[in-house]
């Protein structure tokens, strides 16, 4: 739904935010929304949001309408892979920011690609360290951790391979189990999936499943187990059972790019990879007032791993390679 914003004297730069899905997922799309909201606060731009609610018959039209409205169009969702290569050339004066894929060589298109596998690697490492931390209530010494995915699609698998690799990095014989709920919008399914994982011995379950993830958190609370959030820092939803979140700074990166475009400091037609290096992905431990489950050593370990990944000493696999 489009939020009308009062035309602001300072600048009347217009941003159109096109979402493959819809707002209210408390993760991916909401995070992108925060980006433009921030831009409005800080830079006084105005914006409209174009939601496609996962309806393929709207992708093209919404993108076109956004292009007609805006100076900068931020496209969010891998679903736009084809359109992002067609539409921009039709609107040469509009700048496009395409989030969550990698396309090169189109002058007015900058793509932002996140290394979700890198972030997930850290999440996996953390989970692996926690799952034997019997000092924490509800955790046993069994070396089992879990993940609930929304759909079995490349992006989500990318989360998984990173998560698994991270865990194995800490402890090779750790057992990492994944369940795909088959839906991004069915928390009940998410809860059952998580419940099954917890029942199977996992104490910590990472989710990459949008609204379905809400059910994972509920299961964690109900069974006195623990969960790791995704995309946004979701700890606030339930600080006592969500130990951390794998953050994908979609909003931040969109915000940065908008500034870059404004100040014209952008190399045209480029792919910007947001990995651990640019803090595009990472682990969030919430705010100070929240109980911290991860000990300082753990956090230190995480930092060490992070450094190694950035230096390239640790090779984080991606979904595509896995399939080979």
């Amino acid at each position, binding site marked *: 739904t489009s939020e009308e914003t009062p035309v602001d004297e300072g600048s009347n730069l217009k941003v159109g935010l096109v979402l493959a899905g819809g707002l209210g*997922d408390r993760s991916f799309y909401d995070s992108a929304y925060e980006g433009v909201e921030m831009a409005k606060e800080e830079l006084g731009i105005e914006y409209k949001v174009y939601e496609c609610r996962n309806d393929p018959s709207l992708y093209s039209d919404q993108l076109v309408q956004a292009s007609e409205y805006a100076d900068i169009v931020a496209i969010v969702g891998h679903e736009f892979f084809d359109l992002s290569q067609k539409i921009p050339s039709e609107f040469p004066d509009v700048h496009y920011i395409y989030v969550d894929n990698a396309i090169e060589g189109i002058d007015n298109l900058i793509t932002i690609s996140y290394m979700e596998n890198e972030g997930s690697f850290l999440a996996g490492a953390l989970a692996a360290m926690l799952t034997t931390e019997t000092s924490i209530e509800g955790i046993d010494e069994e070396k089992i951790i879990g993940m609930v995915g929304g759909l079995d699609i490349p992006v989500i698998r990318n989360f998984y391979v990173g998560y698994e690799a991270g865990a194995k990095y800490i402890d090779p014989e750790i057992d990492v189990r*994944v369940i795909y709920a088959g839906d991004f919008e069915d928390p009940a399914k998410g809860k059952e999936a998580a419940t099954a994982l917890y029942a199977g011995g996992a104490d910590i379950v990472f989710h990459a499943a949008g609204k379905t993830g809400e059910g994972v958190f509920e299961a964690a609370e109900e069974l006195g187990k623990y969960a790791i959030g995704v995309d946004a820092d979701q700890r606030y939803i339930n600080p006592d059972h969500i130990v951390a979140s794998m953050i994908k700074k979609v909003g931040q990166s969109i915000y940065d790019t908008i500034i870059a475009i404004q100040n014209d400091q952008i190399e045209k037609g480029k792919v910007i990879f947001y990995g651990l290096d640019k803090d595009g992905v990472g682990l969030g431990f919430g705010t100070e007032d929240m109980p911290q489950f991860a000990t300082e050593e753990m956090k230190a370990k995480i930092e060490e791993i992070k450094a190694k990944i950035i230096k390239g000493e640790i090779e984080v696999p991606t979904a595509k390679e896995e399939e080979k």
Partner: protein
Amino acid sequence: MFKEIINLTLLQHTIRTATPLILASLGGLLTQHAGILNIGMEGMILLGAFFGVVGSYFFGSSLAGVLLAVGVGVLIGLLFAYFVIDLKSDEFIIGIAINMLAGGLTVFLLRSIFGVKGAFSSPDIVPLPRSNLSFLGGIPILDTIFNNHTVFVYVSWILVVLVYMYLYKTPHGIWLRASGEFPEALETAGINPRKMKYLSSILCGIFCGFAGVHLSLGYLTLFTENMSANRGFIAMAAIIFGRAHPVKTLIAAFMFGFFDALGIRLQVVGIPSQFTQMIPYLGTIIVLFIVAKNHLRKKKKVLEGESYNE
């Protein structure tokens, strides 16, 4: 590995997943008996889920949530009945329209009431109480299976019995069935079939309301858009499967729940999720097929039973 799949949690999962299906399908089978196919259950469940949260959040009591959901259920049941029975509109269309209405309305109200999109959860939402059947404490297996469920799990089982008694053991229930099978016969007998049809539709609204509340206040403690997630349609399948008989429908609902639980667990063994998720659906078709085949065989047997030359 085997114990990963077949264990008590499988049964718990089955029960939990089946409950909303049972509740909704009990409502749907009443309209079925009254000669109305109600595919509006999906929307009715969604509305129940939403208003359950509303009531619980604002009045700080899960009972209030239930009552509000029931109230809305009655209204939507009346709406459905008015169009299908009085205006003689196509029940398919009205059902679909109700699903659309529920989809739009809940999203819209979610925003105008709670100012959020997508999902609403809050510690102020009071969940439904959970059972604590201490007398089961002794027997661990029964305890894990039957204890610590939300009230509606038990309500659904009780309702199965009540609905059965009503339909087959009371005059009123007999009239309801007659109103579907041969309304004219009922009318000439001095009973107004219209009233019976209305009643069935209102009860359906209420039961679907229960199903919704169970989702948003029992099973979970939150509301998300489209959280009914096709349960209305599966409930309808259960009704058709159980030939609108309360007990058979209950069995069908449990079957769905079981296949669903099985599917999720089989993923752990490494079967691609798309296939494990097919299990409930393919399973249903296969079971239907087996049932039908046996039925035919039985019929043949009857035929061979008796011979011409006596």
